[in-house]
């Protein structure tokens, strides 16, 4: 089971956090701090896996963002690495050449995409087409109902 997924920048700024087990805000902050210091201090071309407490940490850097996934002991590290990659692909497909700014400004979308892909710490749908189809379907719904409120935005 995946315990959590964190996205943070090279400066250690947290960009996305997804926790699959209930933990306190305090604990979340502590873990985030541990992860950023641990991962950011790694030398380039090191292996992508770390042991941390009784979890395995799988991380990978894409451009300016680090993706950091914690899985339970006994889970498969390589496939977890590809979970990260598949998520990046999904983001890329949606935003078109995704960059850190996309995730900052459209954070809610990044969460929605993640929700289509992972659920309860397990993979829900591995097919890129399937995930994209449902994301697009919901975007269609959004465009359908947001238009009538277009004027209101001016007062936002």
């Amino acid at each position, binding site marked *: *089971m995946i315990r959590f997924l964190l996205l943070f920048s090279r400066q250690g700024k*947290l960009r996305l*956090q997804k926790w699959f087990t*209930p933990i306190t805000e305090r604990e979340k902050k502590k873990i985030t701090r541990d992860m950023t210091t641990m991962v950011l201090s790694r*030398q380039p071309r*090191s*292996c*992508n*896996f*770390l*042991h941390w*407490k*009784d979890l395995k940490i799988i991380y990978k850097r894409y451009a300016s963002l680090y993706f950091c996934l914690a899985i*339970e*002991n*006994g889970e*498969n*590290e*390589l*496939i977890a*690495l*590809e979970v990260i*990659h598949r998520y990046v692909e999904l983001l890329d497909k*949606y*935003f*078109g050449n995704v*960059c850190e*700014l*996309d995730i*900052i*400004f*459209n*954070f*809610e979308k990044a*969460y*929605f995409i993640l929700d289509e892909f992972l*659920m*309860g*710490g*397990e*993979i*829900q*749908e*591995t*097919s*890129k*087409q*399937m995930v994209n189809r*449902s994301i697009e*379907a*919901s*975007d269609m*719904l*959004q*465009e359908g109902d*947001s238009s009538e*409120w277009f004027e*209101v*935005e001016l007062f*936002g």
Partner: protein
Amino acid sequence: MPAVSKGDGMRGLAVFISDIRNCKSKEAEVKRINKELANIRSKFKGDKALDGYSKKKYVCKLLFIFLLGHDIDFGHMEAVNLLSSNKYTEKQIGYLFISVLVNSNSDLISLINNGIKNDLASRNPTFMNLALHCIANVGSREMAEAFASQIPSILVAGDTMDSVKQSAALCLLRLNRTSPDLVPMGEWTARVVHLLNDQHLGVVTAATSLITTLAQKSPEDFRTSISLAVARLSRIVTSASIDLQDYTYYFVAAPWLSVKLLRLLQCYPPPEDAALRSRLTECLETILNKAQEPPKSKKVQHSNAKNAVLFEAIALIIHHDSEPTLLVRACNQLGQFLQHRETNLRYLALESMCTLASSEFSHEAVKTHIDTVINALKTERDVSVRQRAVDLLYAMCDRSNSKQIVAEMLSYLENADYSIREEIVLKVAILAEKYAVDYTWYVDTILNLIRIAGDHVSEEVWYRVIQIVINQDDVQGYAAKTVFEALQAPACHENLLKVGGYILGEFGNLIAGDPRSSPLVQFNLLHSKFHLCSVPTRALLLSAYIKFINLFPEVKPTIQDVLRSDSQLRNADVELQQRAIEYLRLSCIASTDILATVLEEMPPFPERESSILAKLKKKKGPGKVPDMDEARWNVNGNTEHSENTEPTNKSSPPSLVADLLPTNRPRPASYSPTILSAGNMAPSHPFTDLLNMNSSPAAGASLLVDVLSDLSSPAPTPTTGPGPGPTDVCEEHFSRFVCKNNGVIFENQLLQIGLKSEYRQNLGRIYVFYGNKTSSQFLSFSSSVTSSDTLKTQLNVHTMPVDPTVEGGAQLQQILNIECLSDFSDTPVLNVQFRYGGTLQNIAVKLPVMLNKFFQPTEMTSEDFFQRWKQLGVPQQEVQTIFKAQHPMDTDVTNAKVQKTASLYLKPLCGGGVGLILKCCNVSGFTTRETLNRSFNGSLNL
């Protein structure tokens, strides 16, 4: 500004995010946020009802602020309102806010549940998915109570859309993890298994996750999934890569599903059905074969996905541990990876090989890679890879290669990263002891360890070398000589000085014949370093000096001079000063005989688990140190460790460790609290931990218990009743509870059980506290109390039910109500069962419910007493013991203890004494006489 703005961009939100990003300082950011919060609050409180869009936008802003790390204390209600919007986009933001911000005990749960209920009933798959996601994200107990019964039917209903099925499966999985009691198995179970045959691979993937988790908890209910999983796996591995369309990932067919199926199969032993078994073997062979094929793509994703499946297949092969050919092939494959250019693969190969090393079929094959692993230790750039190499060397070590491995680890230690030094030190210390053929090598190794990495040598390590030297007669002379030589170095580590001081103090006489190491030379050598070291070490050296006075009368004046000096007698440190004064006085007034008795050589140490191993386990966390150590280190020799862990051990003589550590070796008769024990040598340090002297005066309650333990031991051991058969009943801490009602009754790597008990008349109540020491959940937790048939008629134990899940780090309380119906001598047993990381744990502990807990004193006049006393004239009704007290007697304390412990006397006398009269007199201050009278009629002071 955002590069793209798809769907409905919320302009106000984008502006706000830009503002935050443009803030130059933390203060500016906080200021901007506070402004925004005030704005939103006024909008929410305003008279004008907000439209859905604004509500959504503000809720989204709040979410952003929260994710930045700021506290949010309002807006929850608005988010909940969004759930009932019929606009998808508003609903979606509402759910997102709730998933991120609502913790499981929010008072809004009932409102949220209402929204979820409507969406689940809507039959709109998009809405249903949102609702299911929310349940899985929050996963609280209230939600589980509200929906757990509904979700299985959504999952197995014929008309449910595939995407909803996927969400339902994973939602159920989540609820099963958090509140398994609310997700009972039922008619749906069989139908879930059949989802493995579903057309839609996404459904199969989600279902496999669910089934794996359920099968770990109740394997029997899901046994039928084995054949379906094998069939599915076989179809995947033999498919052409295009067959599975979008489920093919970089030319690898359904890697996620394959990994999950292989994990599901790891919940079970190899299939018994021959055809099924051979089909599975074929699959595994195909996967191993594919590893040898040229890659279909140069992309790293291709090789990762392919190898992910391969590693999972190897994990299954290791789990089955039954097919020698497959195991050896797996080992060879990993051997190839050891030299792969991908760091990840080298890392994983080292890690997998650790588990292979413990299989009897592959242990030898793993050993052939020793040179590669040693090379990895020397050349790997990444410290985490080197650490895996250390782990593997440790795992593959046996008698045949121990010298080489220990030597390599020692040489690596010279340059090792600080982060892993301590662990390497522990490992070297353990291997050196475990495989020591002669103890000279062991002593050399440990001294080397201290020389190379003195700072990282924990107390356990140097305690251990002293324990071994003291217990092994034949190594004492060598040890004295070696430490003497090592101490010659101009700068030696303080730990070496501690070992040196202790060993020379005990065994310096063995090398004193050589003029180069005459008593005076030895003393001067130690004393030359005295002023450079810390207080605990100096305290230890002072004790070594007084031992010298006993060993070598000729240096007595020199040492007395040292003790007499101002720097000792007036030392600012109380401990040092006291030692100096006492030792000086002792050396002046005591006769040679007394001195010889007081300062006698230390008696051999009683044995128990190596403190070093315990430390390593603690360091590595539960389950990380292979079990083989545990068994092998159980020096009592009763636990035969599973033989397949190491075939070479089968014919070899019992490990040296075992004969080093005689458990019943009698203590020297002269042993008494007055002897100068190491406990006195360094009281400011946790020395007692090393010594485990049960009779140490510190354990106040031990006064009578010690004496009684001999008497009580022949009592019939209680029959465990119909509890779990093979589990040993733990009674390690049982005797502690004779006089006490509270404390820890059981503790291992995973679990701590503490008791708080209270008794009144014939009733008792025990609060049992189960502490989860790990960071992951215990599942299917249950506990019950079993009693023998006889005991059941004598003692009523009522157990309150407990929650089946114990969160990591959490404590669970259970109440036991006890009623004593008649006198009893058996003991009830507490059986605890739970699942940790997939394996079922069984623990049985003797519950300290003893007859004496229900005792009450009765007041009576002395005439009454003696009248009754005299009535009990039959010889079997009286027993008398006279023994020496170990401490000065305090009448009150002794009375209290006698009242609490008296029942133990009864055990050897009869099956169930009912009443007893007890006379306790204190003769001449040091001898206690206790006389017990027993009657059968139950009329006396019970």
